[in-house]
């Protein structure tokens, strides 16, 4: 009996489903797949809650243990790691309800909102770097914004994929500086069509082809974004004098108006005397 292609595809799909017998999880559906594994929605039968299950090759079991060590508000919490009966590794994590960053911009968020997301992602990166963990594949598809505005950075430490072209540093090394490059590319991705020159400069510095010319760490990049948001000069941009004066005037608008009012009053009184 010949089987149709669609039936064969279905059989292959079913055969590839992970064997969850012996675990506390019940398969629901596949929700995504990448180079390193497949993510499924599942139900934790013990706690009666939905979770995300990522199934990887056994050789990548270390990835799960790596992620489980990272406890940060912007890193998806891992509930459990283990080995399935079929020998594949898995980890169960929080099922994030939200949108990926590449779709998040469809909602036309404000610049402040975009920078908030970047800062949250950068903070996760900075934290992971202090724990000796490199992301290696930071890109909009690996950042999610939850339904309450929370930001999650996902798919950590995936060495084999080693970056996505638009977000991959040109140098061959995979270290903190390559993550900085990717964060700069993420910032550039998030910026509106006509971004402020300071933010363009911050992204450009992070994406400098020379790793030594980039920000030394994610914290330095975030500090520059914070300076921009506070109306201060940023390290990445040698702003022209007229822009510096405009920024000064913007930050001190009230004082300048009061001084102008004083000068105006004095001039008015002086001319009133004349006439």
């Amino acid at each position: 009996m010949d089987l149709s292609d669609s039936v064969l595809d279905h059989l292959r799909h079913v055969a590839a489903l992970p064997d969850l017998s012996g675990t506390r999880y019940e398969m629901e559906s596949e929700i995504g797949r990448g180079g390193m594994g497949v993510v499924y929605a599942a139900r934790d039968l013990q706690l009666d809650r939905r979770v995300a299950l990522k199934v990887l090759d056994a050789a990548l079991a270390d990835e799960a243990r790596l992620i489980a060590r990272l406890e940060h508000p912007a890193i998806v919490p891992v509930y459990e790691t283990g080995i399935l009966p079929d020998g594949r590794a898995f980890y169960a994590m929080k099922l994030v309800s939200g949108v990926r960053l590449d779709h998040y911009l469809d909602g036309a968020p404000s610049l402040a909102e975009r920078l908030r997301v970047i800062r949250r992602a950068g903070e996760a990166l900075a934290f992971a770097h202090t724990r000796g963990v490199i992301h290696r594949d930071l890109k909009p598809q690996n950042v999610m914004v939850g339904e309450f505005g929370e930001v999650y950075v996902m798919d950590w430490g995936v060495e084999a994929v080693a970056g996505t072209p638009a977000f991959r540093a040109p140098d061959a090394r995979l270290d903190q500086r390559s993550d900085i490059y990717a964060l700069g590319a993420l910032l550039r991705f998030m910026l509106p069509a006509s971004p402020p020159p300071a933010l363009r400069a911050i992204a450009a510095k992070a994406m400098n082809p020379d790793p030594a010319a980039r920000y030394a760490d994610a914290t330095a990049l975030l500090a520059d974004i914070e300076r921009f948001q506070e109306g201060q000069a940023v390290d990445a941009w040698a702003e022209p004098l007229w822009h510096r004066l405009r920024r000064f005037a913007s930050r001190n608008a009230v004082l300048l108006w009061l001084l102008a009012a004083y000068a105006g009053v004095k001039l008015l009184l002086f001319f009133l005397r004349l006439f």
Partner: protein
Amino acid sequence: MNKIVVGLVFGLILGAIDGATAWFYPEARSLMGGILVGSSIKGMIVGLSSGWFARKVESTKWGVVVGAVLGLVFAYLVAAMQHEHYLEIMLPGFVTGAIIGFLTQAVGAKPATSSAAR
């Protein structure tokens, strides 16, 4: 530097500058010494009061309003002593007070607890 000291310093400086502008009035030049001292003291009193207010209430808007009112009141008292030049003294005094009020809000160490007015 706490807010009261900020008020005193800026009040002294701005009061002195305000008094010094009297030089543009020829009839006042012979009295410059007294005008400068009086204006500086007026500025310091406004600064002290604005600084005290700034320690209690963290609000640029209200800092400017309180400073302006204090500047106007003390300028009126100075003008009333001379029974003339009310406009020339009160109007700049009003604006100078507003500037002092703003500066006491913007500069200086905030106290450990203060209420922030919306």
